[in-house]
């Protein structure tokens, strides 16, 4: 009964996983050179990788994305969760609306936002900036400017993702016993005190969990880059996963792409282990 699952897991997860490591030590291409075949190159791929400025740039871009998007998404979603946790009429409607961008495929979201990000004065965001600041802030080139491209993607991804964390916070908020709030109210605590001394400590586990799991998720970012910038301009939006795609699929360099994948896996593993440590600490 367990057979189909185990077979599929082995063939399509375990075996490729092992091969990622194996290939990373070779110069394998998608179509093997019929004369020379594939050779073992030891740490050659890794040496090239760590000398490749494009790789460092991609890694840095990933860090930039994570450092901004994760806190944004994990903090903005909490007030949203509090708002939709109220017992007022129509709150279900608001919950749906705030969550809906999560449901929309990221590809479609990218298409929507690319229109708003049009770089000259006719673009939507630029028009708004223009009227709000009376022309003081010039047209921003958003996705076409190496300095603002990643930030544009961050803004868009925050919009698209925040509903997800909101729902998880909502679950957490609803499991806080009402009596705690009652006794706080009796003791005369105001809304702000309640928030900082009760709500946040009660949500501590949820907050830590969200920060860590959102970090892991953010590291895998690909679709936005694929759809909007192709890694540019000037490599300012290239990410590690995009490099894996570009090396392995576009350039067909299986060996090199595998070495990037190994580094990627190690980073994700480290973050996941930190997450496990925290969860276990909380349990004990």
């Amino acid at each position, binding site marked *: 009964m367990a057979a189909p699952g185990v077979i599929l897991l082995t063939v399509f997860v375990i075996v490729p996983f092992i091969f990622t490591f194996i290939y990373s030590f070779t110069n394998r291409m998608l179509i093997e050179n019929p004369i020379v075949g594939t050779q073992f190159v030891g740490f050659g791929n890794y040496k090239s990788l760590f000398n490749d400025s494009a790789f460092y740039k991609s890694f840095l871009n990933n860090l930039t994305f994570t450092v901004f998007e994760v806190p944004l998404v994990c903090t903005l979603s909490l007030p949203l969760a509090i708002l939709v946790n109220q017992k007022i009429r129509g709150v279900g409607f608001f919950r749906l609306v705030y969550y809906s961008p999560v449901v929309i495929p990221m590809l479609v979201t990218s298409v929507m936002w690319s229109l708003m990000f049009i770089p000259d004065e006719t673009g939507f965001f630029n028009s708004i900036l223009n009227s709000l600041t009376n022309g003081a802030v010039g047209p921003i080139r958003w996705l076409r400017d190496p300095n603002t491209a990643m930030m544009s993607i961050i803004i868009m991804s925050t919009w698209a993702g925040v509903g997800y964390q909101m729902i998880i916070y909502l679950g957490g908020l609803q499991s806080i016993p009402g009596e705690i709030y009652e006794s706080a109210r009796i003791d005369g605590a105001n809304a702000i005190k309640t928030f900082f001394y009760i709500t946040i400590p009660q949500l501590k586990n949820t907050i830590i969990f969200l920060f860590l799991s959102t970090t892991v998720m953010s590291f895998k970012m690909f679709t936005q880059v*694929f759809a909007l910038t192709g890694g540019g301009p000037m490599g300012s939006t290239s990410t590690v996963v995009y490099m894996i795609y570009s090396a*392995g699929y576009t350039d067909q360099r*299986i060996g090199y792409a595998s070495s990037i994948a190994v580094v*990627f896996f190690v980073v994700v593993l480290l973050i996941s282990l930190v997450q496990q440590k925290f969860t276990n600490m909380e349990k004990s």
Partner: protein
Amino acid sequence: MKRRTVKTAALYLLMIVIALIFILPICILFVNSFKLSNSQILRDMNSFRIFLPVGELGLNNYVYIFERVDIMHYFKNSVIIFLASLVLGAIVNSTLGYALSRLEFKGRKFIISLVISLMIIPTEAIMIPLLLMCHNMGLINTLTVQFLPFLAGPFAIFLFYQGFLSLPSAIEEAAVIDGCSYIRIYTSIVVPLSKPTFVSVLILCSLGSWGDVLWATMVTRGKAVRPISVGMAQIFQTLPVQWGQVFAFAVVMTIPILLFFMIFQKHFIASTIASGVKG
């Protein structure tokens, strides 16, 4: 009394303003898919007219994508992949989850720990050898390759495992004594009792296929088995961008998911929370 009313009104106002931030970009998609003039769309970008159905409106964009771009073909491909992931994924993952939770067999503990450790591996890390493997298996450019490698999901298996563990086993034990085979117990007793688990887990697992553009791009060539996500990327990357048509395409790609979401909202929320507490 008056103070409370003002407070409530202010609250609603705040929530509506926030709602607008989320709805308006989505409006852009729907509204502009009906606008016929590309240059008008670009001009409308300058103002709030981008949110309003003004100017020449009509269904031409939709006609174009249905007749010239063959969107229904891509749609059909995506639906097949989605259904295959859903049904086959349900069978594969739940049977393994059940076996791990109830049946005693050698290596059971080992497989449970294996499944838990496999959850950490991101698909992106194993994609490349997977691509090579599918290439060598001759699976490239088929519908199968777009769902088969992802049927067995460690996370889904684990959620099923946990879900089944929490089912009281009394009924199943009685059935075993009566001589029922495990498969019959599974289909007649366990599955009907765990409907919520099934729905939540399956939503989590099968939705990924609809919007996935990374794997689909890597394993499909040409139009035959192309899913709607790749079609979307294609029309979007064909310059010069014809926004009306692109948006019409996006609407057709989004509506099924949006509908699915509205019908199964409770389960979406439940599966989000389930993925949240997995730690």
